[in-house]
């Protein structure tokens, strides 16, 4: 018998955590979008929901990272680097273009872009190490 934890359990935990992350991020985004259209008492409630969604997203992301092996951690590290550099280049480009009257991009768009680039990086580098 192996003294390692059963890998199937870890794989399932990884999948669940990633699904929960995307779901929480979606709930957070939807709440932030809806909150902008509401009046004060209801708006506060929806903003609390958004914060809870964001907290859940962070928790599930950390849970996802804990359930990975060394190759998956390397894939994740590369995906995060890819997302960081991509977002940095995008932010600098948008900041520069705004000097010439380009439409401003909301702070929320930047974080959404980072999640999209990270997901893209995960797919890209998983394929690279397959």
């Amino acid at each position: 018998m192996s003294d390692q934890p059963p890998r199937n359990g870890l794989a399932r935990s990884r999948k669940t955590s990633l699904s929960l992350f995307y779901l929480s991020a979606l709930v957070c985004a939807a709440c932030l979008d809806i909150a902008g259209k509401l009046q004060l008492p209801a708006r506060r409630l929806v903003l609390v929901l958004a914060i809870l969604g964001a907290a859940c997203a962070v928790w599930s992301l950390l849970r996802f990272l804990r359930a990975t092996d060394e190759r998956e951690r390397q894939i994740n590290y590369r995906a995060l680097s890819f997302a960081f550099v991509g977002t940095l280049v995008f932010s600098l480009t948008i900041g520069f273009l705004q000097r010439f009257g380009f439409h401003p991009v909301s702070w929320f768009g930047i974080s959404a872009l980072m999640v999209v680039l990270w997901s893209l990086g995960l797919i890209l580098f998983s394929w690279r190490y397959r």
Partner: protein
Amino acid sequence: MKTRLRVLRAEMEWSQAELASRVGVARGTINAIETGKYDPGLLLAFKIARVFGKTVEEVFLYDQSQAPPPSQ
């Protein structure tokens, strides 16, 4: 780095999933090591060698032709 992992696994009649379960990694990681797409770290290399009852050198072979040239 070259590896005898596939041969050793075949001798033990283990599937990739079974070996992955024994060393506590994903099946894809075992596949990536066998196909040379990924070089395992020291800890994983020792774990793999241990489940076969071999030394690291008997499972993984250093291929000098793949090493980067020394800097001047």
